[in-house]
């Protein structure tokens, strides 16, 4: 008999937006009521397929990302949750079983009523895509909101009674000097979010920004300037009592995003919706990143999977090490060994590199426990590459 995998997380990718940000590398299409209804029906089919394969689940964390989940109408929200309850969650599931249920929200058009509706179905955490407080930067990023929208959105969150909320910020936007960036961070701190993510602006494949950068229209910050901005963020946020629990994530103590932590820790999670990624054991897959294809696959009764990756125990161990190191808590090699089931020789093979990285001041620890130093965090990819086979 198959022992059902312990599936701790559920991610739902809501693939609708009201436009396209210039830097965006995520999959999204323009929202329409009809498309969203079709999509929900397809999600029902996918949920059914997953239940057949993995059994019903009782996730500890749920994350509605996107896209812009808050574009869904009140009835669509309910329909989506019905789908999950009817097709995927255990029969005895109740919203209280979910420790953390996040929804990503864009500031434009967000209202307290809307947040309350989400709360009713079980959502207890909101992540607001603030990105910048400067209208000029928001314009440059191709965002469709302005500071005034952000302020009313945050007010709406407060009014809705959701206390666990956070913001996403984009660092290293060209034309923004250090002083303005600092001021922006302080202002954000004053609003009192429990969580702040700071991502550096990068020109991703397929984005409008990449074309602009290649065409010479926009010049991104060089790596030294980027580092300065990221260090400023760390300084301001940590001084204000936030913990940098992951390279780009800060939180008030106890408010780290559990869903994301679980991903970095290599726990099992299912992803629903086009372009969503899943991991069960050493198998990992990503869904087709096209709404029509996604729907078509499900209508044909096949899994809407675009690519699948099967890790061997060594690669699993390597991933657990290099991604675990991105977390402030660091990694425990005995846990890595237990969870990946890798050979002892794999751990031994890291020994030399780890002690060199310690000498170079990038890693600290010893024996089983290792973490990045501050400088190590600035060079986390380098450390990862050194530790890869």
């Amino acid at each position, binding site marked *: 008999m198959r022992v059902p995998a312990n599936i701790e997380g559920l*991610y739902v*990718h809501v693939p609708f937006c009201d436009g396209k940000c210039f830097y965006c590398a*995520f999959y999204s299409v323009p929202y329409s009521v009809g498309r969203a209804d079709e999509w929900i029906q397809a999600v029902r089919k996918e949920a059914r397929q997953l239940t057949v394969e993995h059994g019903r689940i009782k996730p500890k964390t749920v994350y509605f*990302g996107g896209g812009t989940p808050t574009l869904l109408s009140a009835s669509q929200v309910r329909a989506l949750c019905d789908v999950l309850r009817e097709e995927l969650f255990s029969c005895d599931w109740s919203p209280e079983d979910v420790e953390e249920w996040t929804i990503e929200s864009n500031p434009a058009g967000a209202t307290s009523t809307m947040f309350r509706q989400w709360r009713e179905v079980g959502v207890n955490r909101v992540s607001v895509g603030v990105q910048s407080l400067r209208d000029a930067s928001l314009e440059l990023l191709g965002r469709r909101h302005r500071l005034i929208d952000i302020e009313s959105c945050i007010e709406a969150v407060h009014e809705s009674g959701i206390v666990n909320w956070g913001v*996403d910020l984009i*660092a290293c936007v060209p034309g923004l000097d250090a002083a303005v960036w600092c001021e922006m961070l302080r202002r954000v701190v004053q609003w009192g979010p429990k969580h702040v*993510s*700071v*991502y*550096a602006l*990068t020109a991703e494949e397929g984005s409008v920004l990449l074309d602009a950068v290649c065409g010479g229209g926009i010049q991104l910050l060089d*790596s*030294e300037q*980027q*580092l300065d901005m*990221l260090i400023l963020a760390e300084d301001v946020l940590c001084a204000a009592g936030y913990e940098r629990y992951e*390279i*780009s994530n800060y939180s008030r103590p106890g408010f780290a995003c559990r869903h*994301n932590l679980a*991903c970095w820790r290599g726990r099992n*999670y299912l*992803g629903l919706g086009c372009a*969503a*990624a899943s*991991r069960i054991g050493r198998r*990992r897959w*990503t869904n087709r990143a096209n709404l029509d294809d996604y729907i078509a696959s499900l209508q044909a009764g096949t899994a809407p999977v675009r*690519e699948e*990756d099967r890790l061997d125990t060594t690669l699993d161990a390597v*991933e657990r090490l*290099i*991604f675990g190191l991105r977390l402030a808590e660091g990694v425990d090699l005995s846990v890595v060994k237990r969870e990946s089931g890798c050979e002892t020789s794999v751990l031994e093979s890291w020994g030399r590199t780890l002690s060199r990285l310690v000498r*170079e001041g*990038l890693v600290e620890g010893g024996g089983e426990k290792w973490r990045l130093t501050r400088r190590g*965090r*600035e*060079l*986390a*990819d*380098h450390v*990862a*590459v050194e530790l*890869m086979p």
Partner: protein
Amino acid sequence: MHLEPNQPGTRTLPQIRNFCIIAHIDHGKSTLADRLLQLTRTIDERAMRDQVLDNMDLERERGITIKCHPVTMRYIAADGIEYELNLIDTPGHVDFTYEVSRSMLACEGAVLVVDAGQGVEAQTVANTYLAIDNNLEIMPVINKVDLPGADADGVARQIEEILSLPAMDALRISAKTGLGIEAVLDAVVKKLPPPATCDNGFVRALVFDSVYDAFRGVVTYLRVVDGELKPGDRVRLVNGGTDTEIKEVGRFRPKMEPVASLKAGQVGYLIGTIKSASDIKIGDTITLAAKPTPRPLPGLKEIHPMVFSGLYPVNTSDYEKLKQSMDKLRLNDSAFTYQPESSVALGFGFRCGFLGLLHLEVVQERLRREFDLDVISTYPSVVYKVHMKDGTVVDVDNPIHLPDSTRVDHMEEPIIKAFIICHNEHIGDILRLVMDRRGTVDKTETLDVKRVMLTCVMPLNEILIDFHDFLKSVSRGYASMDYENTGYAVSDLVKMDILLNGEVVDAFSCIIHRDKAVYRGRQMCEALKDVIPPHMFAVPIQAAINKTIIARETIRAMRKDVTAKCYGGDITRKRKLLERQKEGKKRMKEIGSVNVPQEAFISVLKTTG
């Protein structure tokens, strides 16, 4: 190809013509060959493409011919008789002159193509002399008359004055548009001599090339002089001393096409049981093992490489594979030589000899493409003569082997005589360039109202790296150069080392004139600074003579290498990005504690300004 006179039994083969197409680079040899192949319907229209004989990837990519390419055509001439025409397309670049010489072994005539816009250039002159030395009948044709700047009359005069060839009635054609092509074939039949043969019962054929085919083994290109060769014959390579049984003979159409036999006067190929590439020497005579000829054909003067460089596998475990690949490569590139050597920085590799820098690049490229091998080349060197205090003289082609300066009395470096053809208005700049390269201009000859030929004497190591690029740029592409070795001259040479992070990297060491060291050292440090990625620590790059630092740059320590980006649970994607970064690193060479990318070894050669 010419026979000893007065041999009894000598007769001509009136229905065959063997000729090569020669010219300065880019004057349109391969394009003319295209038209001839089309006109004779040797190639199917569907299979036709530009410069179809340039079939190596590298040739197509660079748009130049590197190897000689034989092809057999049938042509019914104006007189109604069908002729067999064996054409060999040749390269124009000076590094590949050897390919031209060997092609000439198989021919009685040469079609000399001259670009009507460019006129007579340095390799036009050089290849004409080569043809004259080989007793070939030369037929000039003026190509590209379709160009707006074409000056066919002027070019005809140049051919007469500079090359002393009658040319006022030379054919005027456009290989591109097809204008006048039929006349070329008729003229080939009328003006170029047919081959001669001697029916005295002995078989003789001349080897003019050989290639290694992954499926078929060694393929020998040959021109039958006397008698006939067919499958089953046991033949002998006279100089190589090896015997082999013929498995297949055939023609180039232009793909290899087996035939029942190859007869006197014909050009084709032979596949035998020869396994080892080294058994075949270009210019060797093939004869029947049972009845060997007492008179082998005059061979080809062995060519000596001028430029030496170490080739090392990026991946040290590829050493054996590199050796085997070089064995095969040498089969169709006998001008390339190699022998094992080792380097502190790079481990085990080979000291290789080349005809020039383009030749080096081509070999490196072919190793990569045809054998999937990444190789690094060390700083190229010429052969220096080192006179020791004890009176002995040592040849040094590798700076590493330069004896300690306290034991050296003096050194000599190879000197060349360069012939530069250029427009009058560029003389000043070119004089300056030559002087800057420690050269002198010995003679200035007026070629016509616009152009002169400068005869210069220069050290070979000064033209090795980038002289040609500079020559082209100061003359806006109009100057051309040919050169020959003239011997050695005493020179104040020093060994310059490059240090990375305080350690000498022998692969970058070079022997250089004392006056040039500081300038060159600076250039090399700057070039390396641009291509070596930042490390955890600051990396000093220094140039030194006898441990005295003469130039220095520093690569600042890496501060940031992290992507703070949202992956939305897509860990696979993140890992793949890291894997790509890892791959890039693996392709670098770890020298001491410094990772040096392959480009570094090339970038030090490509300095400007």
